[in-house]
């Protein structure tokens, strides 16, 4: 599957900074088993397909190279769901002084 991304698009690239065998000696085993990866966004300098090695210009004008992984990826974090365990806390705390409780 080739997804063409035109030059000038706002994109995200991925770099492998350190392969597992290049990682720092002090990292725990589960971390050492995987590469250290980096993602950064910028403007795509040439037409490319997802998966290509490309060059981008970042927001401050640096040129960086990496694997093209996404065109203008969305921010996916949100507020999640209301938490039932928290919903009654306001009333529980307010009841302490509205009843004039004292231990």
């Amino acid at each position, binding site marked *: 599957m080739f997804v063409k991304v035109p030059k000038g698009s706002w994109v995200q690239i991925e770099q492998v*900074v*350190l392969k597992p065998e290049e*990682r*720092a000696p002090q990292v725990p085993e589960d971390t050492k088993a995987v590469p250290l990866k980096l993602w950064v966004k910028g403007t795509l300098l040439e037409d490319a397909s997802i998966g290509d090695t490309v060059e981008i210009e970042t927001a401050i004008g640096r040129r960086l190279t990496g694997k093209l992984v996404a065109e203008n990826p969305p921010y996916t974090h949100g507020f999640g769901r209301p938490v039932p365990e*928290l919903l009654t806390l306001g009333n529980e705390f*307010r009841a302490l002084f509205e009843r004039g*409780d004292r231990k």
Partner: protein
Amino acid sequence: MKDLSYAAVMARRNEIMKGALGLDYGEFELGGLAFDYERMMEKAGYSLDEVRAIQKETNVGDTPLIELKNLTAAARALSEPGKGARIFIKDEAANPSGSFKDRRAAVSCYYAQHHGYKGVVAATSGNYGAAVASQANMRNLKSIIVQELFDSRGVGQPEILEKGRKCEAYGAEVLQLTVGPELFYTFLRVLEDTGFFNASLYTPFGIAGIETLGAEIASQVQARFGRNPDAVVVTNAGGGNLTGTARGLLKAGAKETKVIGASVDLSGLHMASDRDFNRKSFTTGHTGFGVPFTTWPDRADVPRNAARPLRYMDRYVTITQGEVFAITEVLAALEGLERGPAGNTSLTAAFAVAREMPEDAIIVVQETEYTGAGKHVTAQLTFARENGIEVRRGDPAEQVPGKNIIIPSDPSMIRPRDLSMADLKLSYLRNALKNRPAGSPEALTETEVAFLAAEVKETPEGLAALLHRARGC
């Protein structure tokens, strides 16, 4: 072409740092394990008045001090008669980027601008990134923020995703990494590549920036009540927040005010573990940073850390994740303030500690932080559940970090758990002795002894007793 291997870049760290800080730490060394902390702070930092002027230029500081009357009433209802201090909070979310970190960034960016740097780099997954990006914009500097954000599955902590978004909103270049201490390696490569300033959290500038926070608390309480606060509670992670606040309190004459550090208990979770990374629901303000940095500050990204909390800390308490989430909810419900949650670590401790203090005492929580998508109780608890963490009401004593989050089933269950100050000081001293330069004379010099006494805030006799124990083990 330069060798870019991990070992080669780390070997160049001192050289890279010297260029990126414009500061020669060597001139403060006193031989052996000692260095002249106060001279470093005076010479490399700025005076309180200078910092006030710098921060005023970029709209930082002078934040409101708010009395939490309903929370105080709740604490009193749980206390013995005559107990339950008045709780105040410094609304640091009113700073331009939404946290006290603007105070640190303001001074670092001022220094960078006046020393001719074109840009600033900060390694942070916290609010400091947004603070640096925001302050850099006002000073016409470029900014690069290096974050630890994803585990190897590409799953990111919502709290850090939001902080990354905020940095991008300010126009920063944001480098987002998977888990691992080699973030520092990436950071060094960026400094070397750009020649930008290292806006470290741990320079004298960064700490001087927080002194205004302590000084403002003292002067605001003095103006309203004609006296100093009895206690100030500070969320403790890297130690800078506590160090700067305490120094500011002292400079404003609040010499008797007790400084209490507070951290979220994340014991048992490994901070560099890919698997544990998304099993924690706090990415800062926790014991995983607080304890190691308190007991050995010189593990930071500068040769000598200006954040040295044991010099100022009177007490250090831990509280649980569930307790902080509960108090965050209560802050919104009782006081109409939606803030945090991570910044509410100190508030949670203050709610518990206030119950031990007399009714006429004043306890000040020295920060709030902005809240929003990602960094919100609902976002973080939803994420926790998605990662297999059990969330339930119960006794916070049953919490196991990384396995469950216990929302207290009764308000009285919110209690401070004290870390032993003597054990923390012992641990610091063991680290100091272990890191003493090779070839030092066997006995500590007078200068070293005086340095260590100041480092752990002990009398010569107290230090001697602790050193005896430190050497015995």
